[in-house]
């Protein structure tokens, strides 16, 4: 990993299209400004990680398991009759 030291107001460039500026350093937090092309996706790492985990959970759904869930959440014949009566 490349490690650079920057002060407030200083920047680093990645290629020709991405510029990252340190705009504030305060209470152990660094605020960054990022200039890049519109189609470059920039995400907080923890958000990307939570989506990775949610995707893993989503692909763990087995068709048979979902069938079972659907069956157990269908209204019973008795429930259906009482809904119709209302």
């Amino acid at each position, binding site marked *: 990993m490349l490690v650079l030291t920057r002060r407030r107001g200083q920047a680093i460039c990645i290629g020709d299209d991405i510029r990252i500026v340190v705009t504030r350093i305060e209470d152990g937090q660094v605020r960054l400004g990022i200039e890049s092309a519109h189609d470059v996706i920039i995400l907080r790492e923890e958000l990307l990680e939570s*989506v990775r985990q949610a995707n*893993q*959970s*989503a692909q763990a759904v087995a068709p048979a398991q979902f069938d079972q869930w659907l069956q157990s959440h269908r209204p019973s014949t008795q429930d259906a009759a009482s809904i119709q009566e209302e």
Partner: protein
Amino acid sequence: MTDYSTRFGLLPISDAQIWHCVAPLPGFAELRRFTLLHVQEQGPFVWLQSLDEPLIAFLLVAPEHFGLHYPQRPQFAAQETDGISMVMVILPQKTNDSLQANALAPLHFLPNTRQFGQWIVEHAEPSLTNISEAQTPPATLGVPIIQLGLAHRDSTASPLAIGAA
């Protein structure tokens, strides 16, 4: 037609039924070819089945079923005038619990080009549309969806108990 192994067995799938992933799914970036499968008895839900990895399939539904709405468009669909969003469904650990949606990462489908991708939003907006009566997947996805039937099941789809995301 080519036969592909899927979580639903070996299925003949034509080129017109293949969707190409242009904005990869985080955690599954290597998977690029998918097909959409609809089991009639499962109402509005569809399966996004990988054609590169037979064991991987995602359950999807229109975000409105979870009371969600995505007014923005992802970058890869910026030039398109059509398109439809779906969300991944996560099955709860306990049978009695509600389904959950992967609300921060909807998928956007472009039926004209059969392309789709996943994008990440900071937050989803509540839907103003009530489609709790809908029993089928969005009609705009209808053409390239492969319909499957389960002969041993009741054919009537009943109202679903879906929880908030």
